[in-house]
């Protein structure tokens, strides 16, 4: 059973490799067209599914409403995926900008590396 699962994962990796190869140009086009400002690129880069809108907005020097608006637009564009979290919904980037040679802008404030965190009641406001 485990052998079969490993084999299936191996096949999926192989499929992904070829699909990435075939689709890289189109994905890069979409990313370049959609993320047409440094701020958008930074917000996209920070959207890792662990950070909330307030945290990203603070680092990018904008409002959480703007981050939420970008997320909604990018979801329609197919470059982020939604994640259900306690107290709301977050979005996670589907692609790494570095993989396409797109430079990630430096944040205005120091960014702590994000790690999956346990969401406490006190953090629920931040998630929103």
């Amino acid at each position, binding site marked *: 059973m485990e052998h079969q699962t490993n084999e299936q994962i191996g096949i*999926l990796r192989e*499929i992904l490799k070829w*699909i990435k190869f075939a*689709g890289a140009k189109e*994905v890069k*086009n979409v990313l370049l067209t959609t993320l047409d400002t440094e701020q958008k690129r930074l917000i996209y880069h920070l959207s890792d599914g662990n950070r909330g809108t307030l945290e990203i907005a603070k680092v990018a020097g904008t409002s959480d409403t703007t981050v939420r608006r970008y997320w909604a*637009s990018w979801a*329609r564009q197919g470059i982020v995926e939604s994640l259900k979290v306690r107290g709301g919904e977050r979005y996670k980037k*589907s692609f790494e900008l570095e993989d396409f040679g797109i430079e990630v802008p430096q944040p205005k404030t120091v960014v702590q590396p994000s790690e999956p965190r346990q969401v406490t009641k006190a953090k629920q406001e931040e998630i929103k």
Partner: protein
Amino acid sequence: MSETERLLNDIRAYLRISAAAALRVVAKTSLDIYEKALVYSNLDGKTSQTKIETDTKVPQTTISVWLAGFVQAGLTSPPDQYNSSHKALFTLQELGIDLGMLKRRTKVSKPIPQPSPTTAPQVSNKPQESVIQKTLEPEKSGASNQ
């Protein structure tokens, strides 16, 4: 998220973008007027054609013709065991369609039928006027917009 789910998610993300890019030219032709794009944006796989007719004010018969065209163009999946109604495979944004930039549908009059001299009854001017009036009503088939 398991390794399998992560890989499948990545595969889907790449495939969606590649497919949408490949269909952009077709989409520009198929979704060339505001009402068609509006109908397309309502195709969530659950909403019935009657409900879409109510929401968009486009006659159901016209919607039905348009949906067949969308399926043929590869933009929509027909009803199946998972979706009771047609489902848009992409968002308008993925297809590069801006709803606000599209022109609205113009109602095209059907040609006035010419009565055959052998079978046509003797008609006065009044019924003839009513025929003309009928051709100016909103069309039901929508085939002329294809």
